[in-house]
């Protein structure tokens, strides 16, 4: 049985090599700087990566179809300042208050309306860019390079050169700064674990019904079990179970991490189990064959950029909540981190290949490096250089591994 497990593992070595790299990075920094593996840091690192990782979930599809989105950094920045401006100038709060709302209700409803408007604007951005790319056939690189300048201007216009502080709405800030009460974390962990195992057995039953050969049960169970252990490990750590007298204010799973997890799971599912996802891979793999297979390429490409817009909006909303204000430099350069995460996670810039899961791990690796270097007091000016070299190294390793296989 162990042999079988090893065999399956070898076959999927490329998907696990990233995780191995991640473990090595964590161990390395952990030994050099024990604080790296502290509950505080583990809680933070996932929150910090979330803004990039959410966009990476959409960027994978964009790159898989052979495109690119350079505008998502300033796009998210623009959305963040729009949200901040709505709150700062009380554009939503005042009319609602006039309708007679007050107190906690007012705060919650305001936050919800701000989120809806912000994400709505970002979807419009996606519709705009998607139309230009799909219908007017302007190359994605050019369209989104233009978008990058446009939304940068947008940021400056909205902020008018000053930071717009979100001082009055803690509900809004909860999106990025809030921790779920420990029991909620446990409930989620229980539900997810049960669902994971249910899905495993349901899928096996369905395959059996269609007479498809099943993979080894031991392998599938151990794989699911490993995920469950990681999940529970994380929840227990951030709920501070292993600390003698934890402070209640730091206990709990960050809301933003749950949001990221949901988005990642949905997008991962979409990538393999829906036409939307499958068409994206086919278009990136061979556009001509996809066209002759009756795929509406314009529609596919359009909807991918709209999705990218929506995810950019969610990131933008989270960014404003995380910083607690809308700033003049919001989102600048994020697009590069997003693209790097995807590529590090195995997305091919030639199109047709890439996974959401890989992109998330890629984002986590980038964040782990940043944080580690920071904690080791490496000159912060050097950090980009190191990240850049790691990216080049990773892609080179991937290319040479593929060559060996061929």
């Amino acid at each position, binding site marked *: 049985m162990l042999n079988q497990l090893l065999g399956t593992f070898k076959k999927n070595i490329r998907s696990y090599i990233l995780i191995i790299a991640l473990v090595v990075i964590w161990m390395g920094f952990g030994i050099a700087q024990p604080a790296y593996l502290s509950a505080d840091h583990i809680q933070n690192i996932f929150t910090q990566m979330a803004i990039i990782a959410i966009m990476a979930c959409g960027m994978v599809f964009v790159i898989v179809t052979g495109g690119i989105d350079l505008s998502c950094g300033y796009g998210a920045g623009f959305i963040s300042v729009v949200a901040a401006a709505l709150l700062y100038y009380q554009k939503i709060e005042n009319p609602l208050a006039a309708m007679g709302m007050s107190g906690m209700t007012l705060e919650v409803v305001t936050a919800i309306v701000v989120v809806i408007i912000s994400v709505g604007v970002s979807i419009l951005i996606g519709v705009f860019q998607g139309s230009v790319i799909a219908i007017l056939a302007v190359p994605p690189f050019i369209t989104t390079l233009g978008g990058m300048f446009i939304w940068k201007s947008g940021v400056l216009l909205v902020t008018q050169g000053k930071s717009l502080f979100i001082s009055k709405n803690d509900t809004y800030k909860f999106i990025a700064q809030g921790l779920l009460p420990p029991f909620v974390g446990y409930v989620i962990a229980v539900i997810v674990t049960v669902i994971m195992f249910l899905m495993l057995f349901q899928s096996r039953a369905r395959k059996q019904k*269609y007479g498809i050969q099943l993979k080894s049960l031991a392998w599938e169970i151990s794989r699911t079990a490993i995920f469950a252990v990681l999940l529970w490990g994380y929840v227990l750590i951030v709920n501070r179970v292993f600390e003698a007298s934890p402070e209640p204010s730091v206990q709990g799973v960050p809301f933003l991490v749950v949001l990221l997890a949901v988005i990642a799971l949905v997008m991962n599912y979409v990538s393999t*189990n829906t036409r939307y996802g499958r068409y994206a891979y*086919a278009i990136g793999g061979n556009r001509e064959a*996809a066209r002759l*297979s009756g795929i*509406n390429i314009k529609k596919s490409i359009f909807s991918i950029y709209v999705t990218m817009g929506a995810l950019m909006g969610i990131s933008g909303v989270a960014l404003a909540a995380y910083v607690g204000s809308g700033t003049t430099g919001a989102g600048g350069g994020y697009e590069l981190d997003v693209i790097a995460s995807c590529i590090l996670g195995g997305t091919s810039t030639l199109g047709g290949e890439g996974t959401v899961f890989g992109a998330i791990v890629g984002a986590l690796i980038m964040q782990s490096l940043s944080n580690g270097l920071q904690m080791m007091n490496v000159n912060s000016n050097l950090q980009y250089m190191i990240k850049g070299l790691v990216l080049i190294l990773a892609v080179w390793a991937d290319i040479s591994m593929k060559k060996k296989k061929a």
Partner: protein
Amino acid sequence: MEQDVLLEVKNVTKEFPGVTALSDVSIKIKRGEIHGLCGENGAGKSTLMKILCGVYPHGSYSGDIIYNGKVLRLGAGSIHQAIEEGIAIVYQELTLIPLMTVGENIFLGKEPRTGVGIDWNKLYSDTDELLKRYKLPVSPHEVVKNLGVGQMQMTEIAKALSEKADVLILDEPTSALSEAEVDKLMEILATLKSLGVTCIYISHKLEEFFRITDTVSVLRDGKVVTTLPTKDTSLEKLVQLMVGREMKERFPKGNRKPGEVFFTVEGLRALDPNDPSREIVKGASFELRKGEILGIAGLMGSGRTELVTTIFGEYGILTGGKITLDGQEIKIGSAREAMSHGISLVPEDRKRQGLVLIQTILQNISLPNLDRFSGFMRINGSAEIAEAEKFSKSLSIKAPSVHVAAESLSGGNQQKVVISKWLMSEPRILILDDPTRGIDVGAKFEIYKLINQLAEAGYSIIMISSELEEVLGMADRVMVMWEGRSNGTLDIAQATQEKVMARATGIEIA
């Protein structure tokens, strides 16, 4: 008087896995002559030319090429070496860089230099001299994309001649030229001949041989049938020599009874979507019966592929004619619409158009058919796998599982994947565009059997083939295309290779 031999091909045999492309070919090319080379598609003309210009290096074939009295030994990847030896080729596809000038193209890779920079004055004066010497009416400073096809061709010729070529190979130079341009080319060839350049002239347009060549060699099935002075032969004789071979039992005979006509195409006309000034289908008509195999024959460039991809809704801009299905006129504007009418197309180039090579057999087969496995959102992955495995089994695709990448399969199995993909969509009409291209003999037979089975099962098949023998061996009726139009449909009983060839070359017009 016996002219001396400049280039001799001596007992050359070239094999590819599963196919013998050239077998014991010997041809003598005399100094200063224009030597025509004719043969059906796949007769081995291109392979021979590739040997002459070093694409297939010395050692990858048996036999010798004797050039100027010495054995020619071209190393691997040594196309440049052939040019240095004085053998230059002008390819069928033009290989010029559109945004550069004529002069820049001619001297690409061998620009005259002044120290580190390019000596532009010398480049253009040399170009000018070259063009004048061979009487080529092209301006050295013109940007190539502004030239007509004929002038591009002249630029190609000038480029080939820029290095003192003794032998100039022209591979179907007239396939894209207008009548006037062909006349001009003939003049240029005559000039070249008077200047002592030896030419090897390959063409599908047989009448051209009689205008320009001194000698003609006929290739068939990788063998030289004959070499004879052009004045001693005739058009009809050449056609006969090209196709005249006994039919072997290479095609499985089906047992089918074609039914009623249910699909017709009448007077279809269409423009090239990339160049709407060019008409690519100039009036094509045919009928299709239930459960029959309709062959479409025609030489390369006769508009066969353009016709079927236009019918499939994915190529030409329709300007006239109509398509009817079950008595109702239909309009097809995209592949999806064609599919909804029950029309499927297995395209000509399976790697470029048929498959997503990096994806698995499963993903390829189900690509056009995902709707049938999908609810509102979710694809029923298990149903998909089960269905794909069913097809993989019934077409006996040789692969460890449906989860291996299409790129790892052999040509024949790749083609079966493409056919599976379209069978799964449950078509009534299956269009196969050259389904056995680049497939070895054994796999071809399997594909033939499969096609017969499909016709017997009631599918109506339209089959294009570059091999005349294949069309005659498989089809119930043969529609012949010539210069973008249908030149009559022949019943298989009365269709002979000579008759089809006569229609395909426009000697006989329906």
